[in-house]
């Protein structure tokens, strides 16, 4: 009798594991099928492009978040960093779009490295360390921008948000490239493997002589830069710098996508493809709800439920 119970338990565990690893792909396929059957004008190139364009900034942030979560950390400040980067852009746009973009990225890098410094060197818990920037970052952005939304007119900068290469919008292309880059970084480089090892067992990693502090600072810095990239992209598409709204609740969207994609919050694992599909899934959910005329309110509540469900499924990993 206990044998049967054992076997059932094992089967449940196997099923849970499978769901954790592949649930996101299954869900995307199911949603696509559902929409193909029941949603008018869904299977069009135009619609797909729109969905991808909307998802691109979230994906870029989520990639950085996945790395941070892989080290058993979390970065609550990504939205605030986006606001900061957005506020910087109009200040330097006069000197050319390249300068403006570079400055935005530098701000992201500094913010991220600062978070990393607090986590690695000062030894503050990641949530607590990144909270300070979450509280103050957007305010600082608004102070820089005088609380104003600034319309942008530099055609080269705006082209980032409107142009495409071979029919693929630049933003989508960039997000795809970055996903490949992050995947390569995680799987093929010393840095990536050390990152995963630190998240998997920090004590063992330290005893193995890994450069734990350097890797942690690096990871948060990358996360900050990626948030800035997403901000540049979103700002250019909006044709305006809007620090009040830029990246609002982005930390939630990014964490959700990462967790839904099968990267556990307990660290030690980074699933880049899963994260990409996590972003696509959340985008599809929203699109489906909107196309079926469900109001934003219901959409938000359903998203909240999905987040809880995803974290719940993922939590049994250890």
């Amino acid at each position, binding site marked *: 009798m206990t044998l049967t119970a054992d076997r059932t338990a094992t089967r449940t565990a196997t099923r849970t594991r499978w769901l954790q690893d592949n649930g996101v792909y299954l869900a995307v396929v199911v949603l696509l099928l559902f929409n193909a059957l029941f949603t008018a004008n869904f299977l069009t190139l135009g619609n797909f492009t729109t969905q991808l364009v909307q998802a691109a900034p979230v994906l870029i942030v989520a990639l950085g978040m996945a790395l941070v979560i892989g080290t058993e950390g*979390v970065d*609550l400040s990504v939205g605030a960093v986006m606001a900061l980067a957005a506020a910087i852009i109009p200040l330097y746009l006069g000197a050319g779009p390249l300068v403006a973009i570079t400055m935005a990225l530098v701000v992201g890098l500094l913010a991220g490295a600062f978070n990393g410094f*607090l986590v690695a060197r*000062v*030894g*503050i*818990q990641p*949530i*607590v*360390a990144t*909270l*300070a*920037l*979450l*509280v*103050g*970052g*957007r*305010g*600082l952005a*608004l*102070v820089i921008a*005088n*609380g104003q939304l600034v319309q942008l007119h530099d055609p080269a900068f705006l082209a980032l948000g409107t142009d495409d290469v071979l029919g693929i919008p630049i933003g989508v292309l960039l997000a795809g490239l970055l996903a490949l880059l992050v995947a390569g970084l995680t799987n093929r480089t010393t840095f990536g493997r050390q990152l995963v090892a630190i998240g998997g067992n920090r004590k063992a990693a330290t005893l193995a002589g890994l450069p734990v502090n350097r890797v942690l600072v690096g990871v948060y810095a990358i996360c900050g830069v990626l948030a800035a990239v997403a901000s540049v992209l979103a700002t250019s598409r909006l044709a305006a710098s809007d620090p009040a709204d830029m990246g*609002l*609740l982005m*930390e*939630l969207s990014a*964490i959700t996508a990462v*967790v839904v994609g099968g990267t556990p*919050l307990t660290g030690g694992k980074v699933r880049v493809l899963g994260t990409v599909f996590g972003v696509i899934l959340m985008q599809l959910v929203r699109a489906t709800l909107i196309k079926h005329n469900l*109001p*934003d*309110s*219901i*959409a*938000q*509540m359903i*998203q*909240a*439920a999905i*987040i*809880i469900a995803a*974290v*719940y499924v993922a*939590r049994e990993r250890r």
Partner: protein
Amino acid sequence: MITTTTPAVPRAAARTKVLQRQGAAVALVLMVAVSWLVFPRFGSLDNLRDLALQGSFLAVIAIGMTFVIITGGIDLSVGSLYALGGVLAAWGSQYGFLVALALPLLVCGLIGLVNGLLIARTNMAPFIVTLASLLFARGLLLAITDEGSTTYKIAGDSAFVELGRGTVLGFGYPIFIAAVLAVLGGMVLNRTSFGQNVFATGGAEQSAILLGVPVARTKILVYTTSGTLAGLAGALTAAYLQSGVTVIGVGTELDAIAVVVIGGTLLTGGMGTVLGTVIGVGLIKVIQNVINQIGTLDSNYQSVVSGVFLLIVVVLQRILRR
């Protein structure tokens, strides 16, 4: 004998305690003194009354947050619950005083209860659970306001408006409500078993379990309290504004966390005071008031100052604990 052989954590924590509690109080006194001298309008009774009233709404939320943070948790949903509470109160006011007051408390308390159950029973991280309910509560708010397009008004002559606008000696009722809650909160924290359980849960969860502390029940209770108080703050705000404003409360959770931590409560749990939180509220509101007095300054400086204060306190806590 070398003293470093004993773990340095707790000894330094005592130092932290003194420094923080005193630190926030000293900063508040200095801030008030300077403002009084520099800005003639600061010391006026009207301004002080207004300052206290503005602070009272945040204080009600922050008292609940204090309990949550002492257990080692965090509640990011209070900003949304604050807004939701206001809308529910305004909508409920058409059915009378009782409904206007009870509805937000019940609904927000219920969401807090769900937060607590999920956190205590499934071991999910508090920040992610309460982030999700932040989203959920916003969604619910939009759902009952026709996607934010309807703002429920409260009849000016209703008893409920009196709750928000009534005064004693010119000081608004919410100030007294917040004061009573602060005293009550301090008493619960320090003079009841529940309070002791809150400290034990956040101070050393594993030990607390071995000592027989009902850790899960304690967690459920603090999140329920936090949700309920956020709802109450929303109801009071609605009564004061005579309407359920849908766009308030964005980022309020961050203000609440900031004042709690600035007031000396350890963000890692196990230590804190309600009085400190009240001082934290005072400090932030005085700073905000001064920024407004200067006039040329952006009101957004307030959150920058909060963030910087938070950072200083957190880094100090960490360094002193080494």
